[in-house]
């Protein structure tokens, strides 16, 4: 228990320390990498709520990542071209304000998760995996064929969106914003796991029959978890699109769904800070190995295979040992 707390502390400090060090050494690119890690970790934290806590193997979380990204893209695109999104019956204009964009991203991806979850959770096991994968793919093809927002080529946002009172163009400031969001969500996710909802959800993962026998409905628990999970991953998507000032159908792809899963697994499924470890490791590999070989995905695949076959608890599992049942 103590070990895991130390590991968590280390992981919590890892990114800000890296960013500050990079700032001191005047390496803005490293700050951007740390920001990317924080945002991808956020996507993973979202997935972990459904996957680690709820036991729902969703291989379509890119659906929500993409929705968040396009929420940002659509709102910002209309703002930068000074054309409203809709004129009648309501006037809806675009915006480049991050808080508003985040709110929209959370709400829309949450709603999408409600729809997709309500359908997908009627199935279980392998069916569920296939269905979530399919819905992600559906949005991928839709975003390619819908011409208004760039289709296959994607959508560029020329200037980073704004946050009241802050200069978001400065890399360190934007890192701070992304990290603050990550920290808040980690706090929320941690509390969620220990709350009545978390106890019941995790119990449903271990033994759904037992949960029914005490008068709680696993379907409802899982649906709520799926919605929260989708909303968080959607928020990450909006931030990711903002980081790159670009959104494209790739954010909806099955590869993206797979990558988000990789962050969670490499760090340790169900561990609160697992996605932070996993995302950081992934960025490190992408940068270091990717620099050495353009075929670095082979090594990523081998690493993933080794972790799945032999190191089930991920990195945190290796270092901090088996999870202790905690009060």
């Amino acid at each position, binding site marked *: 228990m103590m070990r895991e707390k130390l590991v968590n502390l280390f992981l919590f400090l890892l990114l800000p320390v890296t960013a500050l060090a990079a700032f001191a050494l005047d390496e803005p690119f490293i700050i951007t990498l740390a920001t990317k890690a924080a945002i991808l970790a956020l996507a993973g934290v979202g997935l972990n709520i459904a996957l680690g806590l709820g036991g729902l193997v969703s291989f379509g979380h890119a659906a929500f990542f993409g929705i968040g990204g396009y929420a940002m893209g659509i709102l910002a695109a209309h703002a930068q071209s000074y054309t409203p999104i809709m004129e009648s019956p309501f006037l809806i204009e675009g915006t480049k304000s991050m808080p508003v964009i985040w709110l929209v991203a959370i709400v829309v991806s949450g709603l999408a998760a409600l729809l997709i979850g309500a359908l997908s959770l009627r199935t279980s096991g392998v069916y569920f995996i296939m269905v979530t994968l399919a819905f992600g793919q559906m949005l991928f093809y839709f975003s390619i064929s819908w011409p208004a927002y760039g289709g296959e080529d994607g959508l560029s946002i020329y200037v980073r969106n704004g946050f009241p009172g802050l200069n978001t163009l400065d890399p360190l400031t934007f890192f701070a914003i992304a990290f603050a969001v990550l920290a808040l969500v980690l706090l929320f996710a941690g*509390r*969620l796991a*220990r*709350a*009545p*909802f*978390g*106890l*019941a959800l*995790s*119990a449903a993962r*271990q*033994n759904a*029959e*037992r*949960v*029914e*026998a*005490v*008068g*709680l*409905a696993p379907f409802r*628990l899982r649906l*709520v978890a799926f919605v929260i999970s989708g909303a968080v991953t959607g928020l990450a998507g909006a931030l990711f699109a903002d980081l790159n000032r670009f959104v494209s159908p790739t954010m909806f792809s099955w590869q993206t769904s797979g990558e988000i899963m990789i962050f969670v697994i490499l760090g340790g499924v169900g561990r609160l800070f697992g996605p932070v470890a996993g995302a950081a490791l992934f960025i490190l590999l992408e940068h270091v190995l990717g620099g050495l070989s353009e075929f670095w995905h082979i090594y990523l695949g081998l690493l993933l295979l080794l972790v799945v076959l032999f190191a089930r608890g991920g990195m945190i599992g290796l270092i901090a040992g088996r*999870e202790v*049942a905690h*009060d």
Partner: protein
Amino acid sequence: MTEVLLDVRNLHKSFGALKATDDVSITLRPGEIHALIGPNGAGKSTLIKQIAGGLRSDSGSVHFAGQDVTPLSTVQRARAGLGRTFQISSLAMEYTVLQNAVLGALGQSGRVMRFFAPVMRQQKLREEAMRALELVGLADHAAKRTADLSHGQRRQLEVAVALTLRPKVFLMDEPMAGLGASGSKEMTGFLDGLRREAPILLVEHDMDAVFALADRISVLVYGQIIASGTAAEIKADPQVRVAYLGEEDAA
């Protein structure tokens, strides 16, 4: 007229040509232990599922304390007051003993959609859980991981979780299963006291326990109740002897 807390009326269930449940009626009165016995393949599991909620009957009805629960799901019947234990212990294995008991208390309270306050620190739930654990004798093991418990302790935990539901009726599926001689004796003594909390429909194979505990015994053979009465009546019933002992005359 003592109220009937569990009223199973004329249940029928067929699977194709096989009549798994053939016009079964059972009642359970307050303070009573009603045992359901029968040879393997008699249809006990099918019947249990129809009472607990996992299987829809072809006809007939089930009532808890006057409420018709026939259209209700397993979850809803648990909320309506059914405390069930499983033949094969069905617990959250990663959790501690206390966490499993708190889960039961949480289910009973119904306030599960809470996302912020730590559940294990909630006074009421802890107290409820500890009360149940004390009653079954597991209070000292509250912090132990369920996966590390012995078989007998898991059976005890099953009962504890059912207790936290403050049920109107207990449905117990072979609570003695896998317990050795001393474990069975303890469980028998425990169930004897448990009847005061709520009456028990006890499905069991262990005849010593059944004859020691049961106020009434019903015998299920090929989906039908062939006899129902006190222990003495059942022991003397010729049809029961044929069903259990074959054609030998065990006079």
